[in-house]
């Protein structure tokens, strides 16, 4: 017999050991993704194959720059959280798991920074 409560036994279990904030973040970014990914898909249909000048002029419009910036921030955060779940599900070794989750986090931040930088560069150039 144990005197521990059922709650204390459940704490820290599961492949990730914690994660309410992570769970909520995944949902919050999923909701934000719906309009932002829709904007992206429409843009791709309209300008995906556009020539250099046309594509730059489109992205340089402030409304487009802002929407695409928000799109990148939202999807890369969502991606970071989502890939982390998958890694935690399948990689049992503590060291490899930690390394992979770190890598995903670094890659996601690099992706956010690169995309925002390129958008700004295109937008400020006119």
């Amino acid at each position, binding site marked *: 017999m144990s005197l521990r409560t059922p709650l204390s036994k459940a704490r820290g279990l599961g492949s990730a050991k914690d994660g309410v904030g992570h769970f909520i973040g995944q949902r919050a970014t999923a909701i934000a993704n719906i309009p932002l990914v829709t904007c992206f898909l429409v843009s791709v249909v309209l300008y*995906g194959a556009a020539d250099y000048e046309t*594509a730059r002029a489109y992205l340089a419009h402030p409304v487009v720059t802002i929407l695409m910036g928000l799109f990148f921030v939202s999807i890369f955060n969502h991606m970071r959280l989502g890939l982390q779940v998958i890694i935690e599900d399948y990689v049992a070794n503590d060291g490899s798991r930690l390394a992979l989750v770190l890598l995903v986090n670094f890659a996601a931040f690099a992706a956010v920074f690169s995309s925002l930088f*390129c*958008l700004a560069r295109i937008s400020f150039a006119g």
Partner: protein
Amino acid sequence: MSDSKPAARERPLSPHLQIYRWPVTMATSITHRITGVGNALGTVLVLWWLVALATGPDAYALVQAVMGSIPGRLILFGFTLSLVYHMLNGIRHLFWDAGIGFRVSTASVVSVIIYTLALAITLGMWAAAYALGGGVR
């Protein structure tokens, strides 16, 4: 200390995957995970396109040549399908989180609708893109 290990206790195993009949909801579930990874890989292409556009005409011409090739178009078509499917099924996930749509019959019908709709929307997007040919000016 004896060196013989205590006999491992026979514990029940959960059945392996191939034991199940595959209901369509199982397929949509794993497809959501696969398309999540697919979307992540696809963003690499989006980034490449964007960095090239910010770099200059030569870099952009290279991206256009690669993405405009037949293999390039096939990959982009798959990426589009992956994004559209994941978005539709992601919306369903959000309804599930709110406790809506769990009846087995409902979930199965919605699964078929999502597969169909994802393909229809993707084909529609590509038809529209081809009709515009080279982008709006």
